[in-house]
């Protein structure tokens, strides 16, 4: 009993301390003008990315290492990155109003911008870069080409204007354009060799490359010709690849590095706060990433909608998210749309869906009834999971326990990333725990991953659902937010009623940093706001 009381006191104390540190951090960030100078050392929680070309890669390791060297056309507002609708110009002079019934976007490009080699950056470079992303030449890979199905052509009629012509007007275009990987490259370099940027860095961003040591670190120094007045504040930065979490926590503790920008689990945050007090500031945010339960519709008995519904009904997301948030990077319950978006379901709307009900006992009774009706009350199956602790294995273990409460016997098969992806792609699984992780919150584009396998080849549910395709197609062409929201609810309800897949608990970003790091604001994605231009050191 005494032990429990002590434990509660400790938790309360820790929460108060954390609250104080968070408040301190928030107040300190607001106070004072940015100071110039200093070198920021941060860690990238990975072993180094594949190539250096943001257009072709998908891993954050590439972005965290290279974003400070590049400019983009538009971006999420770095001073308000938690907003899902606040976009602003980077290389353009002002956000354009679409003309031609929403089919034409004409961007004016800043004058006097220079690449790091001193050559001028013009609209020709912007158009060439975007054409590489949207309409890649044969033999050139573009990881996010499919996000731009609406784009018909990209041209630069003169050195200061870039024109995007769309095939249809859509709400997804502007957020898609704010893709943080959409670096602006030199047309001259691209004309010489379309693959040049895979092994070289040369942009027009706030920092110039000084050194890149494969798998070890990347360093940059201030670009004196940077076009945002006064920025960057830092003299330079050092980014060190550090895949092991204990190293990263220790390094922040010993001030070998100031922070990492992805996320640390709650235990690491609590440890750092406990040990460093006011020397640590924590920023936290809901994350545009989450886990997804995917039953393989081609495998019996998961071809039966009743069995799939029972799977979802058995899960107590509300209580689960609350409990798991103490040990894992998890917090908020949400539907298929990121909870911070205007297109997301409200709590009341969510609670009407299967797997989100407020009365878990009633839901589990219904799950048992459905399993009995389907003749599957003693069902045994294997959950395919990825060999990653945070949060895959934790969520997987929780799910196994939740399913046991309706009589299901579930074992967990945890495999490395390659075999995990291969099993899902080949359909060699019964139920899988996968992830959905996006960068800019772009709900209509983001939910494209839920489309049936015959449309979205990387949907591993292996189901067909023409109704979903039809709703999504209408949504994609809708330009009114309210109408798009109604369609989104229809789309979400359809996925849910058919129990195709279930989003289970959104991830939660926890970024503890040395308190002298100022100016950076957390966003709902570890891909955003990473050019370091607004960061300064209060040392």
């Amino acid at each position: 009993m005494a032990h429990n009381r002590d434990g509660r006191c400790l938790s309360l104390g820790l929460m108060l301390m954390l609250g104080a540190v968070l408040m301190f951090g928030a107040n300190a960030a607001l106070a004072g003008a940015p100071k110039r100078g200093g070198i920021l050392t941060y860690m990238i929680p990975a072993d180094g990315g594949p190539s250096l070309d943001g257009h072709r890669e998908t891993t954050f390791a590439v972005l965290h290492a290279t974003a400070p060297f590049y400019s983009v056309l538009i971006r999420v507002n770095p001073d308000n990155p938690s907003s899902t609708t606040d976009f602003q110009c980077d290389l353009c002079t002002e956000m354009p109003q679409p003309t031609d019934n929403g089919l034409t976007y004409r961007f004016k490009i800043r004058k006097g911008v220079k690449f790091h080699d001193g050559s001028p950056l013009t609209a020709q470079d912007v158009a060439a870069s975007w054409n590489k992303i949207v309409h890649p030449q044969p033999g050139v890979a573009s990881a996010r080409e499919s996000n731009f199905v609406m784009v018909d052509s990209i041209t630069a009629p003169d050195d200061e204007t870039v024109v995007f012509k769309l095939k249809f007007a859509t709400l997804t275009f502007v957020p898609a354009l704010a893709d943080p990987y959409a670096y602006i490259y030199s047309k001259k370099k691209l004309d010489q060799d379309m693959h040049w940027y895979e092994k070289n860095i040369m942009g027009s961003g706030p920092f110039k490359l000084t050194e890149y040591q494969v798998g070890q670190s990347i360093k940059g120094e201030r670009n004196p010709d940077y076009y945002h007045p006064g920025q960057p504040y830092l003299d330079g930065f050092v980014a060190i690849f550090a895949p092991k979490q204990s190293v990263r926590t220790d390094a922040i503790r010993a001030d070998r590095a100031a922070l990492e920008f992805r996320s640390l689990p709650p235990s690491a945050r609590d440890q750092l706060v406990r040990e460093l007090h006011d020397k640590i500031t924590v920023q936290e945010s809901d994350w545009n990433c989450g886990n997804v339960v995917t039953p393989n519709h081609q495998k019996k008995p998961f071809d039966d909608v009743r069995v799939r519904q029972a799977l979802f009904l058995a899960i107590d997301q509300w209580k689960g998210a609350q409990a798991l948030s103490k040990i894992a990077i998890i917090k908020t319950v949400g539907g298929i749309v990121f909870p911070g978006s205007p297109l997301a379901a409200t709590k009341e709307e969510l609670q009407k869906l299967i797997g989100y009900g407020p009365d878990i006992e009633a839901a589990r009774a219904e799950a048992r009834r459905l399993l009995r009706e389907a003749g599957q009350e003693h069902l045994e199956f294997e959950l395919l999971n990825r060999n990653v602790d945070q949060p895959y294995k934790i969520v997987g273990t929780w799910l196994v326990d939740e399913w046991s409460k309706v009589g299901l016997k579930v074992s967990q098969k945890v495999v490395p990333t390659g075999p995990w992806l291969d099993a899902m792609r080949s359909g060699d699984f019964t139920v899988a725990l996968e992830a959905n992780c996006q960068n800019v919150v772009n709900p209509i584009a983001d939910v494209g991953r839920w489309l049936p396998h015959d449309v979205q080849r990387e949907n591993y549910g292996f189901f067909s659902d023409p109704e979903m395709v039809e709703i999504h197609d209408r949504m994609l062409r809708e330009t009114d937010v309210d109408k798009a929201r109604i369609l989104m609810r229809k789309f979400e309800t359809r996925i849910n009623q058919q129990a195709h897949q279930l989003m289970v608990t959104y991830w939660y970003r926890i970024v503890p940093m040395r308190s002298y790091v100022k100016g950076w604001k957390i966003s709902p994605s570890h891909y955003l706001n990473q050019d370091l231009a607004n960061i300064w050191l209060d040392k």
Partner: protein
Amino acid sequence: MYRYIIKRVLLVIPTLIGAAALVFVLMRLIPGDVCVVRLGSSGGTFDPKAIALCHAELGMDRPLVVQFIDFVWGIMRFDFGTSMWSGNPVTTEIWARLPISLEIAILATVIAIAIAIPLGAVSAVKQNTWIDLVVRLFAVGGTATPSFWLGLVSLLIVLNVTSAVFGTPWMPPIEYVPIWQDPIHNLSMALLPAVTVGYRYAAVSMRMTRSAMLEVMQEDYIRTARAKGLINKLIINRHALKNALLPVVTLIGIEFAFLIGGLVVTEQVFNLNGVGRLFVQAVQNQDYTLTQALVMLTVIIFVISNLLVDLLYAWLDPRIRYA
């Protein structure tokens, strides 16, 4: 002697080809491939066209036999290809990591030898005394303690002690700088991992030294030396220890070769960008070319260190002749 060396070097060729064939087949038995990991591991959506393009770029759409012939032909020309993950030549990838792994291996070996041989010898000479007991306890501790655990604990101790003493926690640097650029930075990074690895290494070598010494001390020539009236120090140093070192040298050779690519977890714990970490990374990313090259490197290091150990034998025991 030279004929022996040439024969040994030539034997490396079939060993390498055998290892190459084995790793080629084993790597491809793992489900998935580098393109899928590269595009799918971040949890976002990706275009299946990009996978097909990636396969074509890396030549993975060709028949396996063609890929194998290409690989073996490359080895024969000392061309190990480019990393499927990074696109860099594998020699660049390995060369970037070799110095730190080599440095840790050398430092750990020096620490191990400096501890193992004197303590092993003393333990044998003072058999069944309290000194022997302490040394054996130290050795058992070393063999029973995984070096990665010791690494984690030693880091925590350093952090906590420096925090308590100086008020600010300190830990070794996490970024490698070559010793000729900044010796203090370099050694403060390398010393702790070398000690944690060297402790286990020393423990194993110490046990071997002790048992070899005990065996040698029973030999007739030791008894003869005593009968001749030689002083104990001379008997131990000149007659016993030198002869007892043969199995210890073999062990040190094998351990050293292992350390070059085998510090998988220790390199992770101390954030050392070494060959061991690269090995894990290559396997995780299913980077066939890099894994194959790393296996080749490990085989070569083992073969060379075994060869050097064999040559050392002749110096230690003049009765051994390779002609």
